[in-house]
């Protein structure tokens, strides 16, 4: 359980990191390392070079600008968990982050790393889908912004290309009518979710509009349940739960069968719908 040999380079700047990645096609970015280092230890990943971006302080900030809250890629989960700006402007994240692994791992693991990895059972990709976040990517051709809906492509697959570094996440500051909900079922605290749901909506004329339901742990990536969203907007919770049969295609594994996951997704939808209704 020791990593295969690799070279190590500490990036002095973002440009330096991108140049290093450009020079070694199989290089990996080392951020918090809480998923990459286990993969190295088990030799599931054997890059020739690690590009350590931990020294890039400009990626470690949380700021508010132009109606958005911007979270740097290197912001640690523990830092985001304690951030009053995030609690105020993106409370869904404050609700979700305590479910990520354990304290020692949240001290080290980064916001950007979780998004870039795109684990199908991870909390943050689903939160970004629910929040309609924008993901900022910097590569050799410059900087671009990718909508969360376009970012997650498949099992551990994202819109990141070779030589790209995920640099920040931008979330629009919500209006006063915005509502959020989050729930997750795991066998033990901190384990990956059997099923999880991050949700957002807007209170509108006694009902909900702009509902976004992002499930995790029930597919190859965090997934929006679009028929259920429409049903919830029309005020029919039972129809929304029934629509999950169409929206989701959960898998069976050693932790739970597809049928169990499907059932639990409906249970979570009822719980989260109550949060969306009641959080005033």
């Amino acid at each position: 359980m020791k990593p295969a040999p690799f070279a190590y380079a500490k990036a002095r700047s973002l440009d330096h990191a991108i140049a290093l990645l450009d020079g070694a096609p199989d290089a990996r970015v080392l951020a918090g390392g809480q998923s990459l280092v286990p993969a190295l230890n088990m030799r599931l990943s054997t890059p020739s070079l690690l590009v350590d971006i931990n020294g890039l302080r400009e990626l470690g900030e949380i700021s508010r600008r132009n109606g958005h809250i911007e979270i740097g890629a290197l912001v640690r989960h523990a830092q985001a968990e304690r951030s009053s700006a995030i609690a105020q402007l993106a409370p869904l994240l404050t609700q979700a982050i305590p479910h990520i692994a354990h304290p020692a791992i949240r001290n080290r693991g980064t916001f950007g790393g979780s998004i870039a990895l795109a684990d199908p059972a991870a909390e943050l990709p689903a939160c970004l889908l629910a929040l309609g976040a924008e993901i900022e990517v910097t590569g050799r051709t410059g900087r671009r912004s990718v909508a969360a809906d376009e970012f997650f492509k498949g099992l551990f697959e994202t819109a990141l290309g070779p030589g790209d570094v995920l640099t920040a996440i931008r979330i629009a500051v919500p209006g006063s009518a915005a509502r959020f909900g989050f729930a997750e079922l795991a066998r033990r605290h901190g384990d990956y979710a059997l099923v999880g749901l991050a949700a957002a909506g807007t209170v509108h004329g006694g009902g909900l509009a702009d509902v976004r339901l992002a499930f995790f742990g029930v597919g190859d990536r965090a997934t929006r349940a679009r028929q259920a969203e429409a049903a919830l907007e029309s005020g029919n919770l039972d129809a929304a739960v029934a629509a999950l049969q169409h929206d989701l295609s959960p898998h069976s594994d050693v932790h739970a069968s597809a049928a169990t996951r499907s059932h639990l997704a409906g249970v979570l939808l009822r719980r989260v719908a109550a949060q969306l209704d009641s959080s005033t």
Partner: protein
Amino acid sequence: MTDRVRVALTVNGERVDAEVEPRQNLVDFLREELQLTGSHIGCEHGVCGACTVRVDGTIVRGCLMLAVQCDGDRVETIEGLSDSGDVADLQAAFCERNALQCGFCTPGMLLTAQELLLQSGAAPSREQIREHLSGNYCRCTGYQAIVDAVEAVALARQGQTP
């Protein structure tokens, strides 16, 4: 390509200069190069918490950080915390309450518990203690005695009796 890299860090207050292979995990460096064997190696993929150490004041998995990343950092292990007396009350409570049997998880438990006790203003609830220790596995005690010990110290440090 995989040349050794020179690092300078402090470990338990002492400056350490070393040349490390990039692939060497922090806990292996501490155990094999510095003979600080109090930090244990269990699962080597971040699940069990036996390798918990402090880096720049916060606890991390020693198996999920590379030694080469710790250049300029302040690393503290159970040896340092034990020598300074910072966790003496926790250690005594673990003994009194039979919160250890084989002792393999104990260094990690102590560092993790100490972080919780330093963070919280008021004494944490048993639920909060369980949640904070959830990433540290113990295969002997069933956890009840560990929660008892941490709770007793949490209350004692607040000047309350359990």
